[in-house]
């Protein structure tokens, strides 16, 4: 059997352990009712037999578990095939995975926006608020709007500067608020996976797929935003250029996380030499 080393998950089990396999199958078959419970029980029995047979042939428990899990094959494929027979439940598994992916990727995007908002504050203070706010340089504002802005930004040198300061402040405040929401969404995902009514929506898709989508999404965002900001600065257009660059930079941590996950998944799938 494959000698590829098994990576470990948080509680010390290997991701090719029987428990990890059954946990994942439970997640994927969640909502399958009696048919799902029956399938889970049968697979658990099957794995128990496989482990017992492996240990009887001299393997350690960990080796026997890995062999039993490898023989059953991909848990995602098994869940998909089992659910396909349950009619709409097969579609439900895919929809749940899409919900889970949307939840995680949306939360990660919100956290990145939060980081961009937080980084924008020192950038605005050091290099000028116009780098952060996307106000047109020669925009003419109505008199009432000017009075309102100057009331809140009395130190601004004119209506235009007050508008820029106002919008720069909004960029920072709204961005950070979005980041806090994203962090809450990530915590909520972890809590929902432990059980309860939202658990059925907190199902992760296959990690390789999630990582590939995440790396592509954040990689594209980083490239587009940095290029856009840099080319505007190069052309002498300052308004909002700094926020574009900062937004691109804020996408990089998520890109790195998803890229590492993707590489780890590819390495795990590679055949043992």
């Amino acid at each position, binding site marked *: 059997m494959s000698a590829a080393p098994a990576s470990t998950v948080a509680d010390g089990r290997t991701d090719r352990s029987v428990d990890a396999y059954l946990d994942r199958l439970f997640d994927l078959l969640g909502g399958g009712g009696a*048919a799902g419970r*029956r*399938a889970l*029980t*049968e*697979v658990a*029995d*099957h794995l128990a*037999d*496989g482990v017992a047979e492996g240990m009887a042939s001299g393997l350690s428990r960990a080796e026997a578990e890995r062999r039993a899990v490898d*023989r*059953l*094959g*991909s848990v995602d*494929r*098994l869940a998909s*095939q*089992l659910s*396909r*027979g349950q009619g709409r439940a097969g579609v439900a598994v895919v929809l749940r995975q899409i919900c889970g992916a949307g939840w995680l990727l949306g939360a990660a995007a919100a956290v990145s926006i939060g980081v961009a908002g937080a980084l924008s504050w020192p950038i605005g203070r050091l290099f000028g608020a116009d780098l952060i706010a996307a106000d047109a340089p020669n925009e003419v504002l109505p008199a009432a709007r000017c009075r309102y802005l100057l009331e809140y930004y009395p130190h601004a040198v004119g209506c235009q500067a007050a508008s820029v300061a106002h919008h720069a402040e909004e960029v920072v405040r709204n961005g950070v608020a979005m980041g806090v929401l994203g962090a809450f969404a990530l915590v909520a995902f972890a809590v929902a996976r432990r059980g309860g009514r939202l658990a059925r929506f907190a199902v992760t898709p296959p990690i390789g797929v999630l990582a590939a989508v995440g790396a592509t999404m954040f990689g594209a965002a980083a490239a587009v935003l940095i290029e856009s900001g840099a080319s505007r600065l190069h052309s002498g257009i300052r308004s909002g250029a700094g926020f574009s660059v900062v937004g691109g930079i804020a996408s990089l941590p998520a890109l790195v996380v998803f890229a590492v996950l993707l590489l780890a998944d590819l390495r795990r799938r590679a055949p043992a030499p």
Partner: protein
Amino acid sequence: MPRLLGMQRDSAGVHLDLLLLSVLADRPAHGYLAISSLRERSGGVFDLPEGTVYPALHRLERQGLLASDWEDVAGRRRRVYRITAAGRDALAAEREQWQSFARGVSTLVRWAT
């Protein structure tokens, strides 16, 4: 290769349904025992990806070719599958088609240079 009786083949081209019905025609068995029997009786030729077997068992049961129940086996509660009368009819028809097909292939291969 003809698709016999609408039964499904696994990725190795093996008529999984035919194999499972054949094994279960001899005696009722739970999934693990069915897979082990299949492996042993074929001399290791049909060492199937085990994850393909349960969806196939469930499908055959939905088609009425198998029936299953929870039973105590060696002190453990197991889902035991047994072939139905409709399953035996399907197996007989499938076996006949398969043997005819195998004879044809065998004849062709024998005369090939």
